[in-house]
């Protein structure tokens, strides 16, 4: 069970952060929307603070706990660009990502968010299946 303790603690923190942002500022903690809004605002300032906060929080979490930084994906730049483009286009067109739809949206029982979350979980699973088990992890 110990291996599940940190994921659970981390998950609770994601929930708490989302609730505080909603309760204090009335905003949804959706990272794709906030990132795009920070660059294309109105109301850019709070979005920049949130984005910078994510990076700071990550640094502090590793410093405080001594947890090693995870290894980056080993794929080359072409895969990084392709995946990044898909994530960006998909979250913009689909109005949200794992945080906005998966945590906040399902949290307020939005049918759209439940549908979106089931969709990206499904295509994520299918993609990994294809890459690992049909292409033999060739990417």
């Amino acid at each position, binding site marked *: 069970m110990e291996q599940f303790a940190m994921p659970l603690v981390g998950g609770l*923190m994601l929930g708490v952060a989302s609730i505080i942002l909603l309760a204090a500022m009335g905003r949804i903690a959706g990272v794709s929307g906030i990132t795009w809004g920070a660059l294309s605002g109105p109301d850019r300032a709070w979005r920049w603070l949130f984005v910078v906060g994510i990076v700071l929080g990550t640094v502090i979490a590793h410093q405080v706990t001594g947890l090693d930084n995870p290894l980056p994906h080993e794929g080359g730049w072409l895969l990084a660009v392709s995946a990044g483009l898909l994530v960006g286009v998909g979250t913009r067109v689909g109005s949200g990502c794992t945080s906005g739809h998966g945590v906040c949206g399902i949290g307020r029982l939005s049918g759209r968010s439940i549908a979106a979350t089931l969709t990206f979980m499904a295509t994520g699973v299918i993609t990994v299946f294809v890459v690992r088990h049909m292409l033999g992890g060739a990417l």
Partner: protein
Amino acid sequence: MKIWPALLTGMIFGAGLALSGMTDPAKVIGFLDIAGDWVPDLMFVMGGALAVTLIATPFVLRREKPWLAEMFHLPVSTVIDRRLIGGGALFGIGWGLWGYCPGPAIASLAYGATSSFIFVAAMIAGLWLGGFFKAKA
């Protein structure tokens, strides 16, 4: 409007991502690999986060307005359309290819790997490009 809670919540959010394992592409891809050597850890991330938001969101939204702002900014659309599903589908493919969704991608900049900066730059380009699809579809 007071905006300091954005920094505080961003930091809690980033720390949560780092501790949860969401910033580890191998773990995320292992979690999505249900046909292989499945890594169930990240179920607990979603479970923990949803336990909080499912319970607390109704209480928060029962209030007339947020503590430090004039109104709640919530999405108004309720239509499950092609854009929502198509966008979600594309996002899932990218997520499965690299193991980062937007939050962990931003968080991973803290680790300084060049590939993370490339991924985030491409993601931002994608967010911009997606605007054209969104207008058209």
